[in-house]
């Protein structure tokens, strides 16, 4: 039983990472309709920001984190300006920016691999390596930190969309682009901001997961797939969707590895099989959009 609680904390932390990446997809997807597979690479950039600032230059954690996230914000914003905007203005079909961003996956990854060696780079834990035990619930400091930060991000995002005028503007764009433009909402600014915000959230996910996985140039694609899976399971209709999907995915993954009586090699395939079944039973995801 103790194992179970311990596993639950770890799985929750993993689920939060998946959720953050899923949210990064959602932030871009909602106002623009673009599925951005580059979020995994943004997470990688966040992780490398952590490596450079926190490991190499040994900046204090909050400062290093803030600067690393500011950097990925700029990357996200610039990506929108350079890669997405021209296509949208040309009136290219929606698939064009999606695929251009898929191409950017290669560009980000190879840029990092040109600058850094191909080895995994260490990124420090926020509160060092240690273990917190609250009764039967035990986990690393980093797990609890990840869970806390993720919840804060999701609550902030929810408040933004529900309680602020700017958030309503995002929502309006998501619902109807032309109507939003007529209402005087600056479409291009909304788009740029959504990319910047998506990059920050993804970068945060990368920074939080990197102490475990290390920062390395191939880390983006697995994260992009996990986050996408979280998003699809949770549904794109609501802010909480990716978080719920991420938690479910991580639990399914880790419980099958831990408890399912099948060889470990096959256990890796279980979540994928579950996912396919889930998709077929509930193609719109767990949470439906509120009408």
């Amino acid at each position: 039983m103790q194992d179970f609680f311990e596993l639950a904390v770890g799985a929750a932390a993993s689920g939060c990472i998946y959720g953050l990446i899923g949210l990064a997809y959602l932030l871009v997807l909602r106002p623009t309709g673009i599925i951005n597979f580059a979020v995994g690479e943004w997470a990688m950039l966040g992780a490398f920001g952590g490596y450079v600032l926190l490991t190499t230059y040994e900046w204090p954690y909050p400062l290093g984190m803030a600067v690393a996230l500011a950097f990925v914000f700029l990357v996200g914003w610039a990506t929108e300006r350079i890669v997405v905007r021209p296509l949208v203005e040309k009136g290219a079909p929606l698939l064009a920016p999606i695929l251009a961003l898929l191409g950017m996956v290669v560009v980000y990854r190879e840029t990092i691999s040109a600058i850094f060696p191909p080895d995994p780079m260490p990124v420090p834990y926020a509160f060092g390596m240690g273990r917190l035990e609250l009764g039967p619930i035990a986990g690393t400091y980093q797990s609890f930190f990840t869970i806390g930060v993720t919840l804060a991000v999701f609550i902030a995002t929810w408040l933004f969309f529900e309680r602020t005028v700017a958030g309503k503007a995002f929502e309006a764009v998501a619902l109807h682009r032309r109507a939003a433009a007529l209402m005087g909402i600056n479409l291009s600014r909304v788009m740029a901001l959504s990319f910047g915000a998506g990059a920050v959230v993804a970068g945060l996910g990368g920074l939080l997961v990197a102490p475990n996985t290390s920062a390395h140039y191939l880390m983006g694609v697995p994260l992009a797939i996990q986050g996408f899976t979280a998003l699809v399971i949770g549904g794109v209709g609501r802010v909480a969707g990716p978080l719920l999907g991420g938690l479910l995915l991580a639990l399914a993954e880790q419980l099958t590895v831990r408890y399912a009586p099948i060889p470990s090699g096959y256990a890796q395939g279980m979540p994928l099989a579950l996912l396919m079944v889930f998709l077929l039973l509930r193609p719109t995801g767990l949470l439906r959009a509120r009408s």
Partner: protein
Amino acid sequence: MKLVAMLAAALFATAAQAQDTIKIGVITDRVGVSKPYAEPATEGIIFGANELNKKGGVLGRKIELLIEDDQSKPDVSAALARKLIDQGAVFILSVSLSPATQQQQTVTMEAKTPQMTPMNSADYLTTQLDNPYFWQTGPLGSVQIATLLAHAKTRNLKRVALITDNSELGQAIAKAFRAGLEKSGIQIVDDEVVSNGSTTATPQMQKIRGANPDALFVAGVVTATNVLIFKSYRELGLKMPIHASYNLSVPIYMTAAKGLVDGITFVDAYDPDKPEVKAFEAAYKKETGTAPTNLHGYGYDGIHLVAEAIRKAGSTDKEKIRAAMQSISYSGVMGAKGMKYGFPAGKRAGFDPNGMVVRVYEGDRQGRVVYVGQK
């Protein structure tokens, strides 16, 4: 007419040039998954070739390396093997992914061109195909586990756990480890795989903790995944000793896994106290300004072994090189003191079964050799 003459002259010039050098092909990976290992090995090959050329080359001719990048794609790799053969390479050195080396073999076998991998360690490379033109001097997975077990025999292991990653080499090494453990009558009480790209290894390590083995064998070869495994090991407060594959011999662990590796036993093909190694490290540093790693050593030995075979053959005739290679005995940088590469009795895996050493991490540093061979 003039044009024809010019063309003829040009053709003649290239032909003459071809006479001057001995072409050796290298298939490496500069951008794919094998890059972290293939790049240093290739640097070792280049350094070794320069060194040979400074001493006058082989058979009085300079070595010319033809280096191709296969991106760790086996199909591209096979095409590049053909390219190298077309360009007149008399020997091909493969330092990319094991399946890529395997797919090249289908070409070298047909074209009867000698090929060797100085670092791939999957056992199947010499067993799956009966290719008399292929040799392997990477330390096999089966040698790794035998060496680790020889060192651990005083510990009287009965029940152990095995963990690896899902990379192709990690799986191949784990297979060899499994076979070696079973052969020694040691029970594998838990057999785990961590997928590359996982965010945690906690569920696997919990199972291992539950199985309470005498020792944990780490067959994985992906550094990031191994670091993840060691983090979970520390976090869950596991105490059983760790015996790890040769991946732990890569120096990156000293920086990437700070505070995680102390006390881990690992198998290596590199003994820093060996005089040949000291000479190699000094020369490499002098030439390039950077210190080499054991990965450079694999490539360095590879090119020297090839040069030795050509010297012994006394010609660049592929058939003569093949015969010379099969009867070679060469001592290089890699392996325990006094270890020699050789392919006796038609064997084609040439790393001396007693040539590996066992080392233990002291703090974050790779300690000295504590055990040699598998006796």
